[in-house]
């Protein structure tokens, strides 16, 4: 008899955690320990040889952190996952495992600023070159591919550009060149979008955002689909004996979770960006209510987008959940419906009439909305990128990053939508006063 297929609402609560074997504890225990005892010298040898599964040291694996890993893997429909100290760390674990000196990356332009820095500055220092392309053009991905390309990197839903990636089309470009598509799925969260379903090979998350959901805890997760053919000749690090882990051939030995094992044993073990067990526990508390929260984030954001679109002091609105958004068909194809309409998450951007000065006045007039640089909180968050996160760029660079002078980004929270609309309305009145 086939196994029952559990729904995401159930996986969000149960996946990865069964009652504790030792105590019967129903909720997840926090295993606050650096190290784990060996039963014998032979047991220790087996663990170090990866011949048996077990815990050695919490920089490599920890039973509380492992629950977060399995839960996100299950929610994404992936084979395995690796947690790390932040979303940036998750991205670094994926890319540093995948790439080496002389390799080339094709990445969507207008990525989250931290991702641009990692690719354009930090990986460039290691001799890994990135070509940034127009995320809206599948042809521009194809045109940038080289024989040395070893990864394609993009966001499923761009932050702050809110561009929607055609995942299947870009995956086809990557696969035609025998390389994996790596997708940052932070903004939709795994409840609204599963990039692996559309062909992505590796998914990364800042779990700090919607997964944790409460603005309390930094965490990141990398998920592997289990479907990429690592033995296609382009990834000797997956098929040859590992220099970083005494000769293990990761793909041969661990098969469809070999990439995650290699990221854990070669990359996380050495760079040390491990997630604290208490942080994993806090993020898991958040994940239990992820489906409920995402439904409310989507409903509130759609109401805010409609309100803004009809507001006389607003020049333009960018929310992929609006039917008039240019990527709305892609949203409908790739994202889970919420209340009968495609769920487009809680992030939107709009232009205040009056340009930069009006944008600054809007932010300063907000009473309920918090002025800070984060997204995916229970609280509604607001920021004016041109005067904050992107102020070091000139106007042309801001345009390239998808940041207009009058642009305000809102991460719509879980407050009563009427109260959010009230605050937006009074702040708009103040912005043009």
């Amino acid at each position, binding site marked *: 008899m086939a196994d029952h297929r559990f729904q995401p609402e159930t996986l969000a609560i149960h996946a990865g955690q069964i009652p504790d074997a030792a105590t019967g504890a129903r909720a997840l225990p926090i295993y606050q320990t650096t190290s784990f005892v060996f039963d014998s010298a032979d047991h220790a040898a087996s663990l170090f040889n990866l011949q048996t599964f077990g815990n050695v040291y919490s920089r490599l694996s920890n039973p509380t952190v492992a629950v977060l890993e399995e839960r996100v893997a*299950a929610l994404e429909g992936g084979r395995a996952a690796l947690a790390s100290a932040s979303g940036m760390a998750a991205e670094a674990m994926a890319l540093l495992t995948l790439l080496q000196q002389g390799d080339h990356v094709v990445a969507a332009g207008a990525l989250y600023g931290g991702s641009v820095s990692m690719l354009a500055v930090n990986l460039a220092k290691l001799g890994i070159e990135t070509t940034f392309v127009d995320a809206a053009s599948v042809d521009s991905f194809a045109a940038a591919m080289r024989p040395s390309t070893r990864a394609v990197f993009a966001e499923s839903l761009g932050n702050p550009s809110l561009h929607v990636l055609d995942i299947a089309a870009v995956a086809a470009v990557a696969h035609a060149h025998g390389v994996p598509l790596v997708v940052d799925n932070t903004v939709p969260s795994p409840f609204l979008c599963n990039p692996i379903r559309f062909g992505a090979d590796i998914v990364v998350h800042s779990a700090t955002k919607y997964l944790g959901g409460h603005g309390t805890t930094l965490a990141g997760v990398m998920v592997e689909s289990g479907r990429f053919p690592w033995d296609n000749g382009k990834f000797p690090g997956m098929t040859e004996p590992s220099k970083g882990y005494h000769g293990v051939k990761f793909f041969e030995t661990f098969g469809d979770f070999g990439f995650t094992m290699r990221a854990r044993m070669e990359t996380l073990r050495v760079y040390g960006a491990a997630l604290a067990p208490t942080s994993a526990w806090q993020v898991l508390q958040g994940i239990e209510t992820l489906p409920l929260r995402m439904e409310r984030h989507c409903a509130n954001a759609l109401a805010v987008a409609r309100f803004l679109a009809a507001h006389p002091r607003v020049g333009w609105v960018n929310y992929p959940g609006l039917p008039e958004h240019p990527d709305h068909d892609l949203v409908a194809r790739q994202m889970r419906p919420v209340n009968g309409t495609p769920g487009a998450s809680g992030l939107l951007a709009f232009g205040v009439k009056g340009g930069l000065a009006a944008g600054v006045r809007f932010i300063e007039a907000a009473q309920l909305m918090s002025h800070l640089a984060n997204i995916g909180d229970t609280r509604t968050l607001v920021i004016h990128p041109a005067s904050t996160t992107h102020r070091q760029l000139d106007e042309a660079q801001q345009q390239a990053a998808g940041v207009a002078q009058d642009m305000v980004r809102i991460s719509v929270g879980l407050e009563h939508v009427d109260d959010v609309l009230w605050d937006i309305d009074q702040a708009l009145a103040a912005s043009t006063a």
Partner: protein
Amino acid sequence: MADDIATLRRILRTSRTIAVVGLSAEWHRPSYFAAKYMQEHRYRIVPVNPRYDEILGERCHATLATIEIPIDIVDVFRRTEDVMPVAEQAIAVGAKCLWQQIGVKNEAAAALAARAGLDVVMDRCVKIEHARLFGGLNWAGVNTGVISARRPV
């Protein structure tokens, strides 16, 4: 074909002796990993490989036919096209399960064994399935698919 959690659990829980066909004596080979793991989890491993006299402290047999003790699982680390004779021997010695490892997918051999009343598993690793269903694989961040409100047993 045994492909669901309940059946795989039953096979692994009721089995004690595993004949590993094609077991390597090289410590870094997947067959050695799997056999060593199962041995550590209280299964009796019987190596089947004409190239060696002894592996993992157990006498090595050239074929299944010379093994003197009852065999529960015949675990096959051979190429797909070489599985049929192993399936025929497994039936002849009265094994209870023909288990083809990851990447080994001989449908005809599986069908033959199933008609003879054996449980058949294909394209799965005995070690990974044991760790998935009885604990351990979850520590490696792998999606086990196990959802349960009971303590692991």
